[in-house]
């Protein structure tokens, strides 16, 4: 028998009140844990995915939407842009590199992105085992997450569907053929299916022409195309007037940051948006919600602190005899003080551990509900150093809640208690 055990016995002697307080505290701390985890990983991820992209160019519309669709592949694209205008832009001396992208198809919710080899190179992506990047139309490279979910390996074939969400009609004329799988990097590529811009064009050519309309020449033209190598760098070669969805641009020099967006926005039918600017705007908008949640968490923790105080204080009233008895069998005032503090601290420590686990569990539930969204690639079981502060924070609540009851225990007069009978 020691003080720890005695405190523990008293806590388990009131299981309902103890578990209510632990749960309430855990709930508050779980919210804080989830916020911490999301904030940490989300911002890191957002910055990581936008690294190396100075400007995104697409059809006119919401700049935030353009960034979300073009960089993070979460929102719908703003529309298409003519390729000749895009090519004109690539000749500008302020542009160091330009990556064209054609969006608009998906496989079971995973987006199929038509682009060139610069795009995986931008994220320093490497291929797993024996695959290669796409060389011919309809050859695709899968992100790690896509490969894991679908179970596809190199050599497998599948049909894409139109649109960027599940349930649209399938493009049934041409199968995509898997030629490679990317290694998991924890970035946006994990959730994408990469292919050439040409593949996207040809898929939609069929969608546009009814089988009855198709002429012999048209089909000939397609067969020819399928044998040709696709563009690995720069823009795809074509004689027709084609469209793209977005362009990712790297600046040549800091001057470009000032001149290029204005040039694009006022001089062309396209719009330019900076990922860093739009994301900080988004975080500003989300900030209100986050602050609100944090406030709620603090209130819950405050209430649980009050709950612990009331529980200790009430139990103290019933326990004055017990305390007097403890003194009579040799316990000092200091030991009684410690006993009550220990109860508060043990209670909040349990709350802290439970709360952190609950927070991680919440997050893993959120993630499992949201596999294809941005949240889907967060890691729920990464533990942060800040979580230690949650424990410290909780223990502080425990100590604060125990101060008054502990001193009341310290002051208990044994003679008075025992003779009251």
């Amino acid at each position, binding site marked *: *028998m020691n003080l720890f055990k005695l405190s523990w*016995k008293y806590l388990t*002697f009131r299981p309902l009140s103890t578990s209510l307080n632990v749960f309430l505290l855990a709930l508050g701390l779980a919210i804080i844990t989830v916020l911490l985890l999301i904030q940490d990983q989300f911002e890191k991820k957002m910055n990581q995915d936008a690294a190396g992209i100075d400007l995104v160019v697409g059809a006119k519309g919401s700049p935030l939407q353009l960034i979300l669709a073009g960089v993070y592949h979460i929102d719908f694209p703003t529309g298409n842009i003519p390729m000749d205008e895009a090519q004109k832009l690539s000749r500008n001396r302020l542009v160091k590199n330009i990556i064209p992208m054609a969006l608009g198809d998906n496989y079971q919710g995973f987006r199929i992105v038509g682009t060139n080899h610069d795009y995986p190179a931008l994220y320093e992506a490497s291929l797993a085992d024996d695959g290669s990047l796409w060389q011919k139309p309809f050859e695709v490279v899968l992100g790690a997450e896509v490969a894991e979910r679908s179970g596809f390996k190199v050599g497998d074939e599948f049909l894409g569907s139109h649109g960027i969400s599940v349930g649209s009609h399938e493009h049934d004329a041409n199968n995509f053929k898997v030629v490679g799988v990317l290694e998991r990097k924890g970035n946006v590529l994990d959730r994408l299916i990469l292919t050439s811009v040409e593949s996207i064009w040809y898929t939609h050519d069929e969608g546009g022409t009814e089988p009855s309309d198709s002429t012999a020449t048209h089909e000939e033209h397609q067969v020819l195309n399928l044998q040709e190598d696709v563009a690995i760098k720069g823009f795809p070669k074509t004689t027709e007037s084609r469209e793209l969805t977005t362009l990712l641009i790297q600046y040549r020099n800091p001057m470009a940051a000032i001149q290029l967006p204005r040039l694009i926005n006022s001089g062309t039918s396209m719009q330019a948006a900076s990922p860093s600017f739009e994301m900080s705007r988004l975080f500003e908008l989300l900030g209100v919600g986050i602050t609100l949640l944090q406030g709620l968490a603090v209130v819950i923790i405050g209430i649980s602190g009050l709950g612990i105080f009331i529980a200790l204080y009430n139990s103290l009233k019933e326990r004055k005899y017990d305390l*007097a008895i*403890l003194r009579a069998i*040799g316990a000092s005032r200091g030991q009684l003080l410690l006993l009550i503090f220990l109860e508060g601290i043990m209670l909040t420590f349990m709350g802290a551990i439970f709360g952190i686990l609950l927070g991680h569990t919440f997050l893993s539930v959120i993630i499992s509900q949201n596999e294809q969204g941005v949240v889907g690639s967060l890691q729920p079981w990464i533990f942060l150093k800040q979580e230690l502060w949650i424990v410290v924070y909780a223990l502080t609540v425990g100590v604060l809640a125990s101060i008054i009851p502990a001193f009341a225990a310290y002051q208990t007069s044994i*003679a008075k208690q025992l003779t009251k009978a």
Partner: protein
Amino acid sequence: MIFPDIALEAGESLLVLGKSGSGKTTLLNLLAGLLKPETGEILLSGKNLATLNGQELDLFRGKEIGIVFQKPHLLAALNVKENLQMAHFFSKKEGQNIEELLGELELAAKAKSSVLTLSEGEAQRVSIARALANKPKLILADEPTSSLDDQNAENVIKLLKTQAAKIGAALIIVTHDQRVKSHIANFVEVKSA
């Protein structure tokens, strides 16, 4: 209040009699070191209780004085055995073997029971066991029989007497219970001044 001088050898028993309100319990609290006397001394095996500071006094009380209260006042969160272990823990003294002690008090079967399930007589016996657990030099009992029936009261008195004799402790019982007088001849009377 003024009390007569009381002296007791190890192994001896003494009754403190008096009407309710006469200060019997105050005397007991003084003897236990729970209250401090304004004048005079309380000596136990050569130590003056008044000279000990708070923590020393608590520890000394835990080691050398066993107190049996009018009501058992057992710790409800603990079982019978754990209640006795607490006495060992706080006094930092090994004391008597708890299993044996419970056996002698016919409580061996209840060692693991919650104290809430005990009958009144059993509970009072546990509280006596707790007072004996540290082999104290002085056993103080405050109206130990007042809420018990004749059979239980007789058992409690016999127990206190035999156990005190066994460990060589002085026994002081504060009571107005006539049933106790037939067992212990030696008594002092307290009158409110």
